[in-house]
């Protein structure tokens, strides 16, 4: 069973597009739901930290595996 409600494939996208698309996805979700983002841009790590800090959404988890970054964000 997955531990997220929606997944965004941002592989191949460079800053700022992963953040832009994540914000759109979160806008369509309900409070408490979790968005998983898969990205390949190393700059997305700092970007998603800053994004969550500014928006109040909770960055639950950041993982890196084989050049891919996964972020789980809970909508506030």
């Amino acid at each position: 069973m997955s531990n997220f409600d929606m997944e965004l494939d941002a592989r191949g996208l460079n800053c700022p597009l992963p953040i832009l698309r994540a914000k759109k996805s979160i806008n369509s979700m309900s409070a408490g739901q979790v968005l998983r983002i898969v990205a390949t841009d190393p700059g997305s790590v700092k970007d998603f930290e800053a994004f969550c800090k500014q928006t109040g959404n909770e960055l639950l988890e950041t993982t890196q595996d084989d050049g891919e970054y996964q972020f789980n964000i809970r909508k506030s």
Partner: protein
Amino acid sequence: MINTMQTSLGFRDVHAYPSTHLRLTLEGVRVPVSYRKTWNDGFGARGWKLDIASTDPVIIASTRETGGRIPTSVLIHDLLDHFLSGFDISGHRAEAMALIQLGKRTGSDIRRDYLQMVREDLHYGRVNHESLASFLPPALIANARMDGHIDGRELIQALQSEMGVEALEERLVQHFMHLGERGEAHAQDSLRLLGLKPSRCREIGLALQRVLAEVDQRVENEGIERLNATFIISNEQCALEIINAAGSGLRKRYSSGVG
């Protein structure tokens, strides 16, 4: 004389831009931009914004990074395909028109971008700067069976029920294309009014990207927090002039020839 559509939604008269956001000089068109290590704008991204767009809530800062399929960053797209072409920086109608300019100068397939906006925005009833009902062609809305006032999401769902999801997507992509093509003459007029040759846009875009790439790399490496600068654009050369370069380790000016 500029195209008469200039007062319509999404269009801007380049001669009416305030001098704080665009100045014509002998050297070229001067457009101020700002850099922040982190923008306090609800996105929090590192990068650059045109000063005219610095308070627009839907504009995210851009770095030097290009798209996977196109040799241009979001900032250069905003500058060349929106601002200098006489279109609003944000809004789906303006984006439809600006993407036509992007497609022409880069050869990219903009149908994919239109389809992405359909799936990520219109599908949820969202259109920036206007209602979904005003954005859609009246002939399409006539297909929806509506009882009284409904919101954008309900309108899309009604259209999906009538037409099917795939047919509606294709119809909306066509609408984006149609809207985009309506801006073609205005973009060419706007560029000429600024002394820029539409036929040189491909090379101008590449020169702007080269300048941005060099400066943005240096700014990132040095961990600079904030910076103000001015793009200078002409048919022969593009440059980025750093306003507060002192103490930053940057030169006063970076430039690149136009093809």
